């Protein structure tokens, strides 16, 4: 039994606020991806370095990021660090939490991508007189990013959806936060969340499609 009369006008009036929230959601997702990719490259280098401590850092990061709930990670950034007197705003807590998660997953993606690149390429590059850094930077890295490009868009979509977890750290300016705030005020739950779902769907769809177009252009052989 679903006993509810849908009335859209109140919810539709809130559309501008929700779109504003969608912008914040996109901003956090994009920033968290930029940070996540940069950190993941560093973690991948740590793993390749052969240094035991550095690869342990990288392994621990990946293990925690991939094997605990993102909700927990974000909560710990806010309240866990808060217990040690490090007070981050909801925005920063959410951004760092998602970036942490992204970095873990992307490091694994990069590892898979590296496996797909034959070792012989590094050897060929080195025998041409490149240093190991040069070989990584100009031969391996571009291929690694190319192979893992589509998994990265997956992670981007995931980052957008993860912004809704910001509610646990009192985030109230992103799309989910704005929606739940309006919900508390008006109790038009189903209308508001239906609209939010459509906005989320459109954002993620646009991102996957444009990533595919971009990939088709960038990676033409």
């Amino acid at each position: 039994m679903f006993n509810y009369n849908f009335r859209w006008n109140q919810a539709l009036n809130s559309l501008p606020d929700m779109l504003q929230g969608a912008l914040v959601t996109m901003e956090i997702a994009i920033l968290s991806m930029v940070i996540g990719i940069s950190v993941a490259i560093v973690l991948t280098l740590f793993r390749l370095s052969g240094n035991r401590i550095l690869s342990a850092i990288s392994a621990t990061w990946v293990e925690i990021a991939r094997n605990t709930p993102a909700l927990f990670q974000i909560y710990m950034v806010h309240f866990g660090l808060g217990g040690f007197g490090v007070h981050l705003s909801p925005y920063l807590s959410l951004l760092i939490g998602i970036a942490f998660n992204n970095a873990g997953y992307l490091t694994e993606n990069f590892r898979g991508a590296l496996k797909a690149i034959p070792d012989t390429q590094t050897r060929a590059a080195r025998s041409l007189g490149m240093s190991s850094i040069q070989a990584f930077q100009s031969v391996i890295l571009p291929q690694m990013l190319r192979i893992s490009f589509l998994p990265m868009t997956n992670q981007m979509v995931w980052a957008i959806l993860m912004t809704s977890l910001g509610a646990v750290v009192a985030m109230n300016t992103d799309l989910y936060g704005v929606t739940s705030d309006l919900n508390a005020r008006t109790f038009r739950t189903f209308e508001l969340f239906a609209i939010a779902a459509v906005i989320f769907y459109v954002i993620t769809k646009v991102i996957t499609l444009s990533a595919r177009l971009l990939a088709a252009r960038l990676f033409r052989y």
Partner: protein
Amino acid sequence: MKTSFFAFSLLAVSAVAMPAQADKLDDIIASGTLRCAVVLDFPPMGSRDENNNPIGFDVDYCNDLAAALGVKAEIVETTFPERIPSLMSGRVDVAVASTSDTLERAKTVGFTIPYYSFENAVVANEKVEMATWEDMKGKVVGATAGTYEAIWLEGKVKEWGVGEFRPYQTQADVFLALSQGQLDATVATVEVSEANVKSGNFPGIKIVDKAPMVPDYVALITLREEYGLINYMNLFINQQVRTGRYAELYKKWVGDGEPASLIVEGVYR
């Protein structure tokens, strides 16, 4: 022949189309169970004892209502933002969940007369210099998302134009953040504030002042069109006060003293 067939089918259709309408009140009595949505991280209104059983003012209130209806009570735990979805999707029959009766919300759900009323207190971190509620201006303040006090406080922060408002998901998170110093101050019901200051779970917090809001009258809610049930519950609330049960519950869960007044001066109902 044709006419009698037509008359017969008309009769058959009208018999199908107009059964005696059973409303929610009938449904509850017939099913033998009253399902109440109760928020269980909101002591003393709702919480869990050491055996994880639901206890509190709202839990007892639901049990009383079920007893009056002659049915079994079933407590369904909910959060503040989930009250409406669980009502609308038919998971519960009523919400006994300290719901503030705002006009905005009454466009969506059906409210009874108030069954309780809260006063709100301003609670601050001890390290923050605060004397009155107005010192919250420009500070980082927060409250439980979806509550009356959160809506009020967010409005105030917007009005002041300085400071920051943070809505945490649960009352426990608000007091954790306050205790850690992530929040400078919060507004919460006097009952909850006193319970949390006394419990010692959240060191470093103090009650500063009363919040200057009109008393937060809370009511039972059900679907907006269930007049039969709303009517019944209105009488039930009246009887709770009349029979002294309300005072008894107040004493049991909130403490000694005059039970919170449910009367609005100078107006009916």
